[in-house]
């Protein structure tokens, strides 16, 4: 399906139309659920028909076909129940910009009481224009399962007024979830998340939206270097930096700077700043860890109780502390997290890294092996087993480098 040449030329343009057509239908007073189904039908029809008969106005074509589907569906259902038109949003005057449509639909899909998996699936379909099949493939579940997840999510939305102000923080979190899921699957979800975040920045001036887009770009720039030809993880300090995408880095930095200029830093801007400092180093030895630590201080300061509310930030900060003040200091920072993260693989992996940094390879090997036992991702587990074996081999060869663990 992916290598079918007939659907490639129009797909990007086609998918970009989805939020505009759907938003128009919903604003007109159509039920979100029914409109979304009708548009999905129209999209499948377009993929079938357009290669032979390209439409003159694709957007109007989609709107017309979706409307026809809605009318058909309504006729067959009319006997059973009357439409609940009054429940739904009145058209908002003058809201015809593409960016407004995207934001409007993102708010529809990312209502806070939906489960994150449902928010993600709904966003990818209603805003991203992916087919149910593509979303199912991306998350390695059967198509019927994903279809059910989407229709349950939409049932939850039924009867909700869709013109309420949305929660941008939820939208940002959902887009970031799409992005992080995108490194594993077969469909390029990372690219999709970037596309959606880009649309979002056209719709809102909120600096955190730009911070999120910058963060995605600055991480995505390193994608080609993150795995070798055999699919093995290559950690940041061993990556071939020539493989990094300098254009993506430049764009990420530019967007981050424009966000930071608003003087209203939030977690995505801060994380983007940290990513930018990593991207900025010509070699891992030249990484400006002092600046990275300063940003981590800001990140941790966003929470009242960072150990409980944002342990990932405290753990990231521990690595920076290890590089700036020495491994013993970093390890002490991780001790604060033992209660919260002690059973997670990342906590052990970070301790392995810090032990290695301090030259205690025997302790590093033990920590990496502990991390491997707790890993939930095959590539990561394999990477940790390798790290353990490597550290153990070096510590066996040069025992003088290996001192007893400090703890």
């Amino acid at each position, binding site marked *: 399906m992916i290598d079918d040449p007939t659907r490639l030329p129009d797909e990007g343009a086609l998918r970009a139309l989805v939020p505009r057509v759907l938003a128009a239908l919903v604003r007109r007073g159509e039920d979100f659920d029914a409109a979304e189904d009708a548009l999905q039908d129209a999209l499948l029809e377009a993929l079938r028909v357009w290669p032979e008969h390209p439409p003159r106005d694709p957007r109007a074509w989609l709107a017309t076909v979706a409307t026809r589907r809605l009318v058909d569906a309504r006729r067959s259902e009319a006997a059973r129940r009357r439409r609940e038109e009054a429940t739904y949003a009145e058209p908002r005057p003058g809201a015809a910009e593409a960016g407004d449509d995207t934001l409007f639909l993102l708010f529809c899909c990312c209502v806070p009481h939906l489960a994150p998996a449902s928010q993600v699936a709904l966003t990818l379909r209603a805003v991203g224009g992916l087919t149910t099949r593509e979303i199912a493939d991306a998350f390695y579940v059967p198509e019927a399962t994903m279809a059910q997840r989407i229709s349950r999510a939409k049932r939850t939305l039924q009867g909700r007024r869709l013109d309420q102000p949305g929660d941008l923080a939820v939208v940002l979190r959902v887009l970031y979830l799409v992005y992080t899921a995108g490194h594993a699957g077969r469909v390029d979800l990372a690219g999709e998340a970037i596309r959606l975040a880009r649309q979002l920045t056209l719709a809102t001036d909120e600096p955190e939206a730009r911070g999120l887009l910058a963060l995605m770009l600055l991480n995505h720039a390193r994608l080609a270097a993150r795995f070798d030809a055999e699919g*093995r993880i290559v950690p940041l300090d061993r990556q071939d930096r020539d493989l990094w995408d300098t254009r993506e880095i430049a764009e990420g930095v530019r967007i981050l700077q424009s966000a930071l200029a608003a003087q209203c830093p939030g977690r995505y801007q801060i994380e983007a700043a940290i990513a930018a400092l990593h991207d900025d180093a010509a070699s891992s030895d030249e990484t400006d860890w002092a600046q990275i630590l300063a940003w981590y201080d800001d990140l941790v300061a966003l929470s009242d109780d960072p150990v409980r509310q944002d342990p990932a930030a405290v753990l990231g900060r521990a690595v920076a502390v290890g590089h700036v003040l020495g491994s013993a200091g970093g390890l002490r920072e991780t001790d604060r997290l033992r209660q919260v993260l002690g059973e997670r693989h990342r906590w052990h992996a970070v301790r392995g890294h810090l032990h290695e940094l301090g030259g205690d390879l025997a302790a590093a090997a033990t920590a990496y092996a502990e991390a491997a*036992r707790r890993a939930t991702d095959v590539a990561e587990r394999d990477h940790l*087993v390798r790290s353990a074996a490597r550290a*153990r081999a070096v510590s066996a060869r040069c025992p003088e480098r290996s001192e007893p663990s400090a703890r």
Partner: protein
Amino acid sequence: MPKYLLLKHYRGGPAPHHPFPPMDQWAPEDVEAHMAFLRHVSELLEENGEFVGAHALTPTRTWVRYGGPDAAPVTTEGPHPETSDLVAGWYMIDVESYQRALQVAAYVSSEPGPGGKPLYEWIDVREVMSEAPADA
């Protein structure tokens, strides 16, 4: 064609052919060779048109049962969490015959261990019941 589940175990099964340490204590090049072999097995099965799926499981296990009405599920790590049988992962294959399934399983079991020598790991082979009668 019948489907078979080839189960790999963290522990349990017949007495091992020979003892070997956990993989994080192998020489790095032996770890690489082992992982490369497993990648090669999946590729080979895919090329043969015999591959259905493969998954690894984490070693953490929780037994759970219904707790009764209005009660939380009851969980335990099991009667002998350190020694009981523990599945590590599986291949699901779709092959011509039982003989072919045994052949594939034996090949998986030849995976290289410390010093590049075969592990002779026991593989648990189970036929998957089909959903429809064979003559349907």
